[in-house]
């Protein structure tokens, strides 16, 4: 501003201090949530779905997805075909059978700060609270994390990483349903799997900054130590994501008791904190496509990557004609998780979209996420 000298040390001090303070703030990616809300807003009937009562939301959603019954207490996740769908799709994918989520106007909790959960409703039957407070029944879209193999790996690194899909919860308890999905359903993407398959969850409760996930039966899977740590974070990330409480620790119990050994290595006697994203999260994610979805010829693929020199390579291959396009895009910032967007123009047919990172040392592919889609 005009009334200040350009190199006043006072100005420099303020600039430096505010920049330093600001740099400590790393907001979580919110694009899918914003897109889902923007889309919901566009539909006049559900302009503000997050203030609808659970009952009203369930009726609207049931009508939209053609469900026959809406049971009060039976929390039901909306159909496996919606599994792995991201609520965020920059193209108009409403014609797609696989992408029911956008058309049903999901209502993600708008406020990350509304983490304190209200007391359980009196008709709660699905997830009895052993201690602490059970979740509120709601209709929302929640992330579910899965394991995917890393392509290039060194001996020091785990060979698996976390990938994310979105599910729509209709009139259910978000974290409980998300864990149920992880333990009993397919990810909907052939590349993603769950180490928790076969486990039986009894309840998810929250008390004083600790979320307790109680299992009737913990998973029997045996993993190597590094993979076991990532697989444990699969649950931590999923539960925190569903409850929108990234700072809460997660206690795993079996029939009410902590301390069982998990995946042959992990001691569950104390609650787990969220591991740093760079240690466990896949370094490249395609976020707005569902495997098997129908898409428009003009689409923008969005995702998140932590890429060397901010470079994300991509390749789109027509699986029938083998026609192929490939190029690279930059993430907003390098070396840390940051969004990217790939604008595509594809001919009709079945395409495989791959986003991948290359090794700085030898140029080999180190990390990849791929989706197969049908272009109209």
């Amino acid at each position, binding site marked *: *501003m*005009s*009334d200040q000298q350009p190199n006043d040390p*006072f*100005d420099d*001090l*303020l*600039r*430096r*201090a*505010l*920049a*330093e*303070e*600001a*740099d*400590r*703030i*790393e*907001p*979580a990616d*919110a*694009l899918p*949530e*914003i*897109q889902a*809300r*923007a889309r919901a*807003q*566009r539909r006049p009937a559900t302009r503000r779905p997050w203030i609808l009562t659970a009952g009203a939301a369930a009726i609207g959603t049931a009508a939209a997805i053609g469900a026959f019954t809406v049971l009060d207490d039976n929390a039901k996740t909306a159909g496996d075909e919606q599994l792995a769908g991201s609520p965020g799709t*920059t*193209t*108009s994918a409403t014609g797609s059978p696989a992408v029911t989520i956008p058309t049903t106007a999901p209502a993600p909790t*708008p*406020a*990350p*700060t509304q983490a304190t959960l209200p007391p359980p409703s009196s008709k709660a039957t699905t997830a009895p609270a052993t201690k602490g407070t059970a979740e509120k029944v709601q209709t929302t879209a929640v992330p579910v994390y899965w394991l995917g193999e890393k392509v290039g790996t060194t001996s020091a690194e785990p060979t698996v990483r976390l990938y994310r899909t979105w599910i729509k919860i209709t009139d259910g308890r978000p974290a409980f349903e998300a864990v149920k999905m992880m333990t009993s359903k397919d990810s909907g993407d052939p590349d993603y799997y769950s180490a928790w398959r076969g486990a039986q969850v009894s309840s998810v409760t929250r008390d004083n900054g600790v979320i307790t996930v109680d299992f009737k039966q913990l998973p029997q899977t045996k993993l190597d130590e590094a993979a076991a740590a990532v697989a444990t974070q699969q649950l931590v990330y999923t539960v925190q994501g569903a409850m929108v409480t990234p700072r809460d620790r997660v206690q795993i119990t079996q029939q009410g008791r902590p301390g069982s050994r998990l995946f042959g290595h992990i001691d569950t006697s104390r609650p787990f904190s969220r591991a740093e994203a760079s240690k466990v999260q896949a370094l490249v994610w395609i976020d707005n496509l569902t495997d098997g979805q129908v898409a428009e010829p003009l689409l*923008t693929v*969005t995702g998140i990557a932590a890429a060397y020199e901010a470079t994300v390579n991509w390749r789109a291959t027509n699986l029938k004609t083998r026609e192929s396009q490939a190029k690279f895009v930059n993430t*907003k910032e390098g070396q840390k998780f940051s*969004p*990217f*967007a790939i604008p595509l123009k594809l001919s009709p047919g079945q395409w495989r979209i791959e986003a991948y990172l290359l090794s700085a040392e030898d140029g080999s592919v180190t990390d990849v996420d791929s989706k197969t889609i049908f272009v109209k």
Partner: protein
Amino acid sequence: MAQPAVVYEEDVKHESSWDADEALTAVYTAHYTSLVRLGALLLRDTGSAEEIVQDAFVAMHGRWHRLRDPHKALAYLRTAVVNRCRSRQRHLVVVDKHTPRSLPDEPSAEQAVLRTVETDRVIEAMRTLPEKQRTVMVLRYYGDLSEAEIADTMGISRGSVKSHAARASKSLRQLLEQNV
């Protein structure tokens, strides 16, 4: 400055052909983080800042047909974020009078360690400023906005911006020159 915060000229081209979804993705990619940081500096509460910025993006998407220009969209977002932060802050002041001192986002022990002493002193000093003065200072020194832009964003006159800035600078200089 480590990263120019709310500089709208960079990497957003005039793309009046964008539809609302494309605009949302592009503007989000370029500016979500810096807007949250702006909100967090104003509010000292990252969670509330994220919520406010997300609301602003949803609102921007809804009125894209009137904005039609990333520059206008960014000015709109900035104004929405600042206004919402200010009204949240006023609400907090009222709440604060009736509750024992518990402002949101008291820095945790580890955050405090990560911060330099110098930054700490500046941030603490900023905290003592009245809300309008603090907003002017954050927009000026973090947002790098001109007097005219600050006036537009806050909906006040340029003269008011000047006097808020002058008073804030005087208080801060006094505070920061103590106990050096």
